[in-house]
């Protein structure tokens, strides 16, 4: 279980302190899929980076399995069982898809085993396993490989930052099945997804709406989803310049 307690995060904005996250508390219980949603610029991705340890909070504590991990490094958190899928997958020269999946799995996987992870995200594994993770792959392909590396970790907590970003709608529909399957086979683990996508909100156990760096609303899907679909929430999103009406299917970005 992951707990964020009174988390704040400030950055220096041309000499002035700018608060990206303000006193946010939230819990990701075991065996649950939590979706964090809300308008762009609301601090969603920052929350994911704070959990992975890429950013350090300026206030508050992060607990994982009861242990305070606020001061732990990215590596330490990864080894404790936190996995993180980048919104924009990182490209490498000379590192193959197979290498990345092996590193993720933390052991020398057979090619067949590595291929299973690729198949699970809808990639024809044989075509990809020896490809370099570089710009010769499309955005959608890189995204699927990114998700495969997280699945290969079998982590206690998997965090996905906007899995729908940079990927076409057709590919994304297939990815929904990946997340649905993860949700169904969830055991001693939990999943946190940052998303705007209705289909992902639909498979959430709980939804947290983050706006202007604070938790605007949180609760079960049945409690929050109808509110999101209502005019109030849509207007709130549009006020932030987002024409990404929740409750209607709109492609990622």
């Amino acid at each position, binding site marked *: 279980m992951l707990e964020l307690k009174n988390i704040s995060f400030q950055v220096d904005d041309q000499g002035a302190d700018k608060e990206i996250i303000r006193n946010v508390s939230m819990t990701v219980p075991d065996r649950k899929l939590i979706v964090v949603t809300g308008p762009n610029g609301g601090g969603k991705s920052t929350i994911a980076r704070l959990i*992975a340890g890429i950013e350090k909070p300026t206030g508050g504590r992060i607990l994982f399995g009861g242990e305070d991990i606020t001061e732990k490094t*990215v*590596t330490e958190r*990864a080894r404790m069982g936190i996995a993180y899928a980048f919104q924009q997958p990182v490209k490498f020269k*000379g590192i193959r898809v197979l290498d990345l999946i092996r*590193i993720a799995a933390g052991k020398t996987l057979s090619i067949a085993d590595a291929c299973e992870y690729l198949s699970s995200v809808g990639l024809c594994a044989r075509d990809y396993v020896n490809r370099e993770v570089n710009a010769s792959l499309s955005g959608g392909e890189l995204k699927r490989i990114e998700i495969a590396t997280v699945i290969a*970790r079998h982590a206690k907590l998997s965090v996905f930052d906007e899995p729908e970003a940079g990927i076409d709608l057709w590919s994304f529909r297939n990815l929904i099945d990946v997340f649905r399957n993860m949700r169904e086979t969830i055991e001693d683990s939990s999943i946190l997804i940052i998303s705007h996508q209705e289909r992902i909100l639909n498979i959430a156990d709980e939804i947290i709406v983050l706006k202007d760096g604070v938790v605007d609303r949180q609760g079960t899907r049945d409690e929050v989803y109808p509110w999101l679909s209502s005019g109030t929430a849509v207007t709130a999103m549009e006020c932030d310049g987002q024409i990404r009406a929740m409750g209607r299917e709109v492609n990622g970005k």
Partner: protein
Amino acid sequence: MKLDEIQKRLLREVADLHEVPEGAYNIRSNSQSAGRRSTANIEIVSKQDVSGLEIRIRPGTKRESVHIPVVMTESGLKEVVYNDFFIGEDSDVVIVAGCGIDNCGNQDSQHDGIHRFYVGRGAKVRYVEKHYGSGEGSGKRILNPGTEVYMEEDSSMEMEMVQIKGVDDTVRTTTAELAAGAKLVVRERLMTHGEQRAISNYDVALNGKGSSADIVSRSVARDRSYQKFDAKIAGNAECSGHTECDSIIMDQGRILAVPGLEANHVDASLFHEAAIGKIAGEQLIKLMTLGLTEAEAEEQIINGFLQ
């Protein structure tokens, strides 16, 4: 001549040799021949006037290999060796050279290998040259390879040059002249450490119609090392040329990439690319989120880059 354990280790590093190689070979150890074999199609003989070999490959020789590794373990040894390769028409061969120096003493050890390749019409050559240095002595390990390539019509040559470890000072000079339809591909991989210095100069003349050259260097400069990549291609006919320097700098490493394209013909098509920078932070973070430490992540990124 029997090789000791250090010499055997050097041989493994530079030529992947565990035993006596298949095919033709000459093993040079501390300036003397430690073994040689010619085959029906490949003849290796010593030069009379200077130190070195003449290697003659019969026209039409297919799928044969020549190994000519050099190992040096005596501190203070300095040598210049001239090896000439005459590669017959329509042959298809692999040539593995390479030099390993182990210097435990306080005097510099230096091997300057001058290789000349006369590649016959339609012949196909794959050439692999690895450099390696080891030993704790204060004496430097110095390698200055000079390579001259003369390519006849429709011949092709692929050169793989690797220097990853332990060589203190290198000036590599490669020149090539290509006739019509000839194709030259060079893949250079280089890593320098400590105070090492590596300079790589290319001067390629695309003289014939339809000739092409593709020279790509991937390198990593660590500590306080210095590298210079100076690649010049002259397009003297309808031809295509490409050079690329793709480098990672770490610590206080320094790299100078000098593009040199000279188009002397209106149908010459020449490109140069160069990118130098440190390892991208996002790459390190990605691998750290997979459980690697920063140092392990760095190593993975560099290993991949130099693959």
